[in-house]
């Protein structure tokens, strides 16, 4: 609790607290980054689940993973900035707590999925995708959707 209170007193957090432009712009960056993240991981997931039809063989999976990674870092940085303004409140917000748990699980799943699937499966046939990797793909869609859902509810619970 003292740490959270100290975060709120940091110069950056204090400036953000009453800013007219910066706070909504950081909020926008957070939302846009989540859009890029969910879009890129979902494309990868659907490709490994064999649900992308004609797009399947040509999908630049490694490139999409890099986009997902950068989007994740951006969303995390923007989210941390907004968290700092009311750290004690958010730390007790049930939607926030669930979201952070889901983010951790989804991030681990992303790493495991990348290991299992390898870095260059863009041309491989669906039969060669191991079942565990397909499970990761299904989990990924579900987890990131729930991350976005619970994130949206932070402001309403």
């Amino acid at each position, binding site marked *: 609790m003292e740490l959270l209170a100290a975060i709120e007193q940091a110069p950056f957090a204090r400036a*953000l*607290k*009453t*800013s*007219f432009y910066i*706070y909504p712009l950081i*909020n926008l960056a957070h939302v846009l980054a989540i859009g890029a993240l969910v879009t890129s991981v979902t494309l990868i997931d659907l490709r490994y689940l064999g649900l992308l039809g004609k797009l399947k063989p040509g999908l630049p999976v490694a490139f999409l993973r890099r986009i997902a990674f950068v989007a994740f870092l951006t969303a995390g940085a923007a989210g941390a900035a*907004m968290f700092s*303004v*009311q750290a004690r409140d958010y730390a007790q917000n049930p939607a926030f707590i669930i979201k952070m748990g889901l983010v951790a699980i989804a991030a681990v799943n992303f790493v495991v999925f990348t290991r299992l699937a390898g870095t260059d499966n863009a041309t491989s046939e669906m039969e060669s995708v191991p079942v565990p990797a397909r499970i990761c793909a299904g989990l990924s869609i579900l987890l990131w959707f729930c991350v976005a*859902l619970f994130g*949206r*509810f932070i*402001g*309403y*619970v």
Partner: protein
Amino acid sequence: MHHPLDRRRFGLLAAALGLSYAMPARAHHGWSWTEDGFFELEGIIRAIYLGNPHAALDVDVEGEMWRVELAPPSRTLAAGFDENAARVGDEVKAIGNRSRDETERRMKAVRIIVRGRTYDVYPRRAPA
């Protein structure tokens, strides 16, 4: 003054999400979680928060703590309610809409009265 359009829009959003009615209404955003009729509260200010995403007061009403949500900081400041407008320990009267959840001591104020001054933080919603 009610704005049925606003309420309908938030109602649609809530219905689209499908979850908001299943979850406890302890919200900050929007008005979907509040009752329609006006509600009044009088008490002693115990804490003042003037920041993003919404300003808020903690108000002691005969021993019970209430959270009184205001507008975003820019709108709250535009209404004249700044750092010097009130101090912890001041009496406050808040008029607005309380949470539909009767077990929850939370309201969203459209007007607050402190030290004899009236601040309409949501002027378009404020009573005449």
